[in-house]
């Protein structure tokens, strides 16, 4: 390790650089550290005085400034989770209850955000379209009253009523199961979106 032949202040500087660069991609940090190490070993004699070493380090600048220069512009990075992303997640989950259009507003926000990839946006859209409201609606339909009454009268005759089977197509247990699955899938999708945008 060439660090042994560096001036102690230069070694300390490199250590600060490594610490400051923890969030860089490892290959980028390694390259940067190698270059700066070369600079330090050429510019500072291992036996130089501290004052000479500090003069070189001053010209080099703060390690944090070098790391900042190496860090890509925010524009190049995918956006992180902000207020808009939270609103999108909440509306995609529960917006269906807001006069029906809340979910669509959520979708617009979801698709306009740069925090998610296209694949993640499709997952947010298609896993449970409508979100929680869909689960609740389907659950209610499945559990709804089994009968409906149709009455019609014949002029001058007795009124007749028929009772037809309503849309009760499932046992309560199945209805509850469908409800639970849809609600859980909606919540899981929201958690997935929140984590992917983090």
């Amino acid at each position, binding site marked *: 390790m*060439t660090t042994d*032949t560096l001036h102690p202040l230069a070694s300390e500087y490199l250590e600060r650089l490594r610490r400051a660069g923890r969030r860089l991609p490892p290959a980028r940090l390694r390259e*940067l550290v190698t270059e700066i190490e*070369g600079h330090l070993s050429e510019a500072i004699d291992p036996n130089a005085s501290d004052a000479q070493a500090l003069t070189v380090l001053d010209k*080099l*600048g*703060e390690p944090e*400034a070098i790391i900042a220069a190496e860090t890509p512009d925010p524009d190049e990075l995918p956006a992180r989770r902000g207020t808009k992303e939270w609103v999108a997640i909440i509306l995609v989950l529960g917006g269906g209850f807001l006069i029906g259009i809340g979910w669509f507003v959520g979708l617009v926000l979801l698709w306009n955000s740069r925090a998610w990839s296209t694949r993640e946006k499709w997952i947010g859209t298609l896993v449970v379209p409508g979100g929680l409201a869909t689960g609740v609606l389907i659950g209610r339909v499945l559990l709804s009253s089994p009968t409906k009454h149709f009455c019609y009268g014949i002029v001058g005759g007795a009124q007749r009523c028929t009772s037809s089977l309503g849309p009760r197509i499932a046992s309560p247990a199945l209805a509850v199961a469908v409800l639970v699955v849809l609600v859980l899938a909606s919540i899981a999708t929201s958690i997935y979106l929140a984590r992917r945008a983090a």
Partner: protein
Amino acid sequence: MAAAIRETAISQLRRGVLEFCVLALLRDGERYSYELVRALGDAEGLVTTEGTLYPLLGRLRREGVVDTTWRESPSGPPRRYYRLTPDGRAAIGGFVTEWTRFRDSVDALLGNGVLG
């Protein structure tokens, strides 16, 4: 306030021209990183912190305007030598033309006191 605006403008200008200064230094042949950084650091008013030039060199490598080779140095760790690629040579050629025009226009305006 005026000083802050001037500082911002100057640092943006520096950022804009620095990479072409690196390319210009390589026109006559290859140089290794430390040589490049010292040459730029010694130029009056061009570089405030030499360390931030290393990320710039990395960007030039990724853009494909320079190529690099590592070679042993007579003393200390190996050195990374930079040279222009054909793309880099074209880039600096084009910039020299543009810069001359830009500089002449700005000089003329500043000289006439148009901008104060």
